[in-house]
């Protein structure tokens, strides 16, 4: 399942969620039009969904709108969550569909021109600069993948979703997820080898 916080949250600077928090119960409260529950859900998901959406959309100005569109689906139709999947799987699936629609509306494929430089804006100690440069190069390489491949990579490595859950989110066969991951990995390897040399990464 997609990890709701704890280790992943701490390591990646995302919101750390109390383990006892029951997201299913939050959805039930949202069914009852509890705005406070909706805010809790927002605060849980905003960092992870933003991250997921920016990786698919690659255009920061579209992210907030897509994030709000995603969560407004939850707010308007919380009863659509039928409990057969994790809340996180349901919400990420909505986010994925929302992001693809946003991309279609805004014409493919103008990638974020600043994606490669955003991570290296601030000066700092040498080792941190090196890390930021590495992240910038990685971000640029990710930007050259298709949205579908980026989604698989990000869901796997950042959100720590298993391939079956990713297939649910992307609404595709598990074989497709595996194939996309293989292709994405190969492309990233090739692109990073261009930057760092075959053994430099």
């Amino acid at each position, binding site marked *: 399942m997609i990890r709701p916080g704890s280790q992943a949250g701490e390591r990646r600077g995302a919101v750390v969620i109390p383990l006892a928090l029951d997201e299913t119960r939050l959805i*039930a*409260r949202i*069914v009852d039009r509890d*705005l406070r529950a909706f805010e809790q859900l927002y605060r849980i998901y*905003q960092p992870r969904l933003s*991250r997921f959406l920016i990786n698919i959309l690659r255009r920061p100005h579209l992210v907030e709108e897509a994030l709000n569109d995603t969560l407004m689906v939850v*707010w308007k139709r919380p*009863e659509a969550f039928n409990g057969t999947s994790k809340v996180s799987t349901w919400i990420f699936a909505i986010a994925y569909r929302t992001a693809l629609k946003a991309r279609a509306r805004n014409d493919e494929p103008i990638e974020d021109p600043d994606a490669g430089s955003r991570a290296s804006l601030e000066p700092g100690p040498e080792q941190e600069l090196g890390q930021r440069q590495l992240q910038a190069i990685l971000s640029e390489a990710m930007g050259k993948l298709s949205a579908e491949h980026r989604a698989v990579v990000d869901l796997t490595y950042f959100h720590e979703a298993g*391939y079956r859950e990713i297939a649910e989110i992307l609404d595709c066969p598990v074989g497709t997820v595996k194939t996309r*991951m293989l292709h994405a990995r190969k492309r990233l390897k090739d692109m990073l080898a261009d930057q760092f040399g075959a053994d430099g990464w």
Partner: protein
Amino acid sequence: MVDGIPDDAAAFSEAHRDAQELLAWYVTGKLEADEHARVGAHLSGCADCQRDLAFQRKLEAGIAAMPVDVEQGWSRLRDLAEAEEIPAPAPRGLRFGREQAGYLGWGIAASLAVALGATLMPTAATQLAQNTSADGAYHALGAAPTAAPGNMIVIFRPDVTEAEMRGALRAADARLVDGPTAADAYVLSTPAAKRTAALALLKARHEIVLAEPMDAAAR
């Protein structure tokens, strides 16, 4: 191409393809136990996969460390949610026993659109009102910074209807400023010159349990 090639090249090739497909989730620990064991067994004899594993570990660390660069925007989403007029959904399996009461509470709150604006003086009556923020000062419907301070506190009968509340407020020329507090009290505002008369009127109404004056200090 690999160290320790098994006798059965076809089986190795099949295991290699399987491992390549699953390697990403081997790295993140998201495989089933049998899959994990299968990939692990192949890894021990495949130099290609071992190199790939090292690459993927770096990739995982690099991608996990990429920053999230989006500002918080709850206030904008809250505005959207509040603007959305949605009828109460039919009871479903997900409800937890608060069906009608939950929507009634929301409906009253939304229709009255109260604003919290008073810093209340610590009198006996205002103690009821001070409980308003005891739950963490969340006032989704009260973001207006210029709300009028309240000068009366009332408690309605528990079974009062929204129409009866509205009727009492109109009769007393009072406006709802805040509530319900934790004690189910409401803070009302009425012109200072009319307060005594308003309190007398409210106390006389059958739907009011308590009506007391309350002094508020400007913020």
